[in-house]
């Protein structure tokens, strides 16, 4: 039992990332009808926003520390972040420590801006072209974005730690009445899961309970009619693209402490997220979220020792296997609607 709970927990953080990226992909697909291969790149850019913020916060100037000397007896020069001077040493240190959560505030406007530029600048011109062209141009864009990041940040992963308060693990088993040390779970993964739930809820609430969301949903159902009613649906869809970019970006920001960001992390996640979207059902938002968590958890179950002994290599292929089975037995995915992406 404890082993099962542990695997479910382990699957949650990856599942959250899948769910968030797939949610954004589905938002874009459902509103604009575009298959966005550059969505993984947006996830990656989000992660690098966090890297940039933490670098900016630790921007330092050299100060001569009179109290300490180096081995030659000269006064020691120490790097002091500018932020210490502005907020005092303890507040400054706390701000640097909390760089990743702070990045969220910066990532939202940055990612929305990038998303809107992307939609207005490039994707807009591809609505009338075949899906294959959309895939290809966004694939090209993903390569370009990835190479730009590589040029500025190098090819190596950049460790970006979580705040001190969330470093380390806690004994989840003891909390829910199992033996001590049976289920050890890192704090940050729980934070990530909670965060993704908040984002997912926020997106759904936004679509469900605001007038803007209502118009967008109407546009998803029948774009032409909404346009005929005198509503500028294109503008709203552009904003939705921005929001989808922000969702991917935030998933990236929060993922940095789990996995040090590198320039190709987006592509790695993209392939799996597409599988998630297809399993969930093209154009279905709840489907994308459910499939994200489902596949994340399945993946973690498949990597249990007992399962691998039974079917060797299953941990490597489980996601693809599930995708193939689902696509062949339920062509519309778990919760796909009729008439979406069907020629």
């Amino acid at each position: 039992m404890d082993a099962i709970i542990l695997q479910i927990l382990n699957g949650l953080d990856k599942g959250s990332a899948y769910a968030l990226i797939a949610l954004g992909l589905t938002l874009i697909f459902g509103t604009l009808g575009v298959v966005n291969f550059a969505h993984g790149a947006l996830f990656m850019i989000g992660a690098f926003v966090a890297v940039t913020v933490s670098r900016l916060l630790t921007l330092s100037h050299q100060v001569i520390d009179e109290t300490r000397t180096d081995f030659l007896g000269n006064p020691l020069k120490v790097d002091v972040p500018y932020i210490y001077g502005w907020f005092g040493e303890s507040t400054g240190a706390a701000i640097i420590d909390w760089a990743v959560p702070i990045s969220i505030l910066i990532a939202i406007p940055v990612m929305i801006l990038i998303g809107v530029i992307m939609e207005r600048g490039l994707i807009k011109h591809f609505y009338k072209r075949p899906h294959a062209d959309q895939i290809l141009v966004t694939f090209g864009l993903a390569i370009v974005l990835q190479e730009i990041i590589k040029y500025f940040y190098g090819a190596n992963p950049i460790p970006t730690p979580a705040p001190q308060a969330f470093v380390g693990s806690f004994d989840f088993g003891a909390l829910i009445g199992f033996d001590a040390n049976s289920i050890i779970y890192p704090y940050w993964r729980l934070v990530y899961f909670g965060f993704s739930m908040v984002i997912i809820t926020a997106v759904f609430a936004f679509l469900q309970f605001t007038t803007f969301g209502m118009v967008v949903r109407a546009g998803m159902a029948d774009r032409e009619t909404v346009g005929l009613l005198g509503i500028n649906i294109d503008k709203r869809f552009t904003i939705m693209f921005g929001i989808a970019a922000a969702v991917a970006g935030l998933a990236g920001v929060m993922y940095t402490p789990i996995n040090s960001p590198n320039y190709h992390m987006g592509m790695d996640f993209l392939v799996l997220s597409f599988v998630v979207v297809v399993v969930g059902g093209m154009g279905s938002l709840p489907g994308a979220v459910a499939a994200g968590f489902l596949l994340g958890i399945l993946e973690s179950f498949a990597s249990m020792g007992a399962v691998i002994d039974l079917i060797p290599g299953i941990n490597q292929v489980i996601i693809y296997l599930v995708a193939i089975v689902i696509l062949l037995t339920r062509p519309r995915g778990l919760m796909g609607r009729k008439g979406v992406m069907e020629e």
Partner: protein
Amino acid sequence: MLGLNKKDMNLLLLVAGLVIFAPFILNPFPEGSELAQFNAGYPDLMQRFVIFGIFAIGFNILFGLTGYLSFGHAAFLGVGSYAGVWMMKLLTMNVVPAIMISVVVAGLFSLLIGYISLRRSGIYFSILTLAFAQMSFALAYSVLTPLTGGETGLQLSLNDPRVLGISATETGSIPVTHFFGLEMRDSFELALGSWLFTFNAGYYLCAAVMLIAFYLSIRIFRSPFGMMLRAVKSNQQRMKYTGLNPKPYTLAAFVISGMYAGLAGGLMVSMDPLAGAERMFWTASGEVVLMAILGGAGTLIGPVLGAGLIKYMENILSKINSTILHEWFAFMPDGIEDVMVTLVYPFIGKGWHLTLGIMFMLVVIFLPGGLVEGGQRIARLFRRRGAKTDDSGAEQSQNTPAE
């Protein structure tokens, strides 16, 4: 001749000429000169040009004609490579059986995957092929290690039980691949003045195979079967209403293109008997997509051009570093030189992928017919300027596709 009309024959002869004289054409700069680094006429790279040309031609038969975008074609190339190496390990170092088994195994594998994947179309088809390829990659990398060599890749060893042939040469090394005695690494070097041209046996074998593959693809493009594949692309519904079942045609196209990929894999291991799982990774599949689109999907010569261009960039452009750039711009005043180097540097050397990505995007946005369409547009521009009274302008605009 050979069942081709005059235009296609000329194209085939042109390609044959380019391929046969490639050692000259690709080595335009004398040895030791500053521009010698742009020479691409060394055997290893020339082999890669034609092998990836075959791969791209095959991919084009599927994507260019039927419009089914496969994101998992590298799996067939990988499977073909493994089969080829096994043939060399068990039977003989002669490349012919190895290449044959590669084609057969890749064909069977693509029949299986195609049969399942082609039940869906559009994005679903792309995802299914991608999923299958990623699965093959993951399996080759982990569980199938006894069969594939896992992370280190599958390579020949000194104690392979080779039935027809020896496990090790007298000097105690692994025997080399050969074509009925002609060793693949045999080269004939011709020095003309300060130029050095290398004629490699392996390259010419690949080139001959590539010409045959190219000829077959022309025949497929011009055959009734090719027309059916185009019908699949333009309107499946209409095709069904006329009483034709599109499924067997697309499956046949898929298997043919899978066999082309296997052929490329077999040739690859014939040149260098080593097969690794990374050949099946989805980025490798993405690369062949880039090749076909960049050159011009649905055209005959486009994919070959695309393959050549990408491999040239990968091997030549990526070698240029900032020192060389400084040399180039040395004639400029110092300040401007530095500015130029900083401006150009991100696009070359290690950043060649950036150039590739930008080029690819530009082609997809502005030239959906790829470089071939670009060439045609330029040619038409000149022709129109040359002979305005000529009526062929109207005729030309009608037959833009294919070439």
